[in-house]
């Protein structure tokens, strides 16, 4: 082997393969947004937000924890906005200084979320005056969770990411079960099972990072 410049090659093939894996993992890690920051904010928002809705509008019209009727959904929306900001910044940082099909895909997927959530919110807001508080929270909760589940499944299809697809399918099924159990039960089921699912995926995704 004649080196074409003075940069010394490694003598040991095993050492070279180790170096290759190290550099691959290095760049892959910076290109992959931290799954904890991508999923935990949403899991926490759902656990706390839907948890509070359950405590205020429990099955049978009971009030387990007395608080103003507007408070639980306001907290849920605030937590969801915070989660959107955290994941937006995290995803943006991972995609910074990279150009090409992957970043265009990421941008289009992000825009899809914003447009879909905005459309649903405008539609649901039309029913504020005509629905009682507990029905309204089922409409908002059930609709938004259905949207989230579907978009996660679509994301899984787009990036060929089985875990994201499974999370979306799980969220969708949990949501349907919750809706069928009806007013009162939906928030509890979604908070624990779907919120919990996001916390689990954030953890397993982080453990699997290269």
């Amino acid at each position, binding site marked *: 082997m004649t*080196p074409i410049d003075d940069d010394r090659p490694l003598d040991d*093939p095993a050492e070279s393969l180790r170096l290759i894996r190290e550099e691959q993992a290095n*760049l892959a890690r910076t290109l992959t947004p931290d799954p904890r920051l991508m999923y935990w904010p949403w899991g926490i928002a759902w656990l706390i937000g839907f948890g509070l809705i359950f405590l205020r509008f429990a099955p049978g019209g009971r009030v387990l924890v007395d608080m103003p009727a507007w408070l639980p959904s306001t907290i849920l929306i605030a937590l969801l906005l915070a989660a959107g900001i955290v994941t937006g910044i995290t995803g943006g940082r991972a995609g910074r200084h990279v150009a090409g099909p992957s970043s265009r895909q990421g941008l289009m997927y992000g825009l899809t979320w914003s447009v879909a959530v905005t459309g649903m919110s405008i539609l649901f807001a039309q029913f504020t005056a005509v629905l009682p508080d507990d029905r309204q929270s089922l409409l908002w909760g059930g609709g938004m969770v259905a949207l989230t589940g579907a978009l996660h499944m679509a994301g899984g299809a787009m990036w060929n990411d089985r875990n994201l697809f499974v999370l979306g399918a799980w969220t969708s099924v949990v949501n349907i079960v919750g809706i069928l159990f009806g007013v009162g039960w939906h928030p509890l089921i979604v908070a624990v099972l779907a919120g919990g699912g996001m916390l689990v995926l954030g953890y397993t995704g982080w453990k699997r990072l290269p």
Partner: protein
Amino acid sequence: MTGTDEIPELDPVIHAQARLRVVSALSVMREADRIAFPRLQETLRMTAGNLSVHLRKLEGAGYVEVTKTHHGRTPMTLVRLTRRGRLAFDDYTAALQALLNPPS
């Protein structure tokens, strides 16, 4: 089998340690994706001058494509591994594997 068949030829362009690191890092990106020079430099922990020298050698071999563009008003240099570079990298890693586990 002759003696020369047993030792796979290692690509001298990739064989230098610094260029092996550059190509390894670029190999995790999808084919048409490009990474900005400063971010690649940061990941590889190399000086800008050193990275430039090695990128020029890789570009000369047709293994990487370096494009200059603008992001707003700031000029930006983007790097990607070409198909040829990816093939060379795959051959190189296969050769390393063959050196480690010689066919019996």
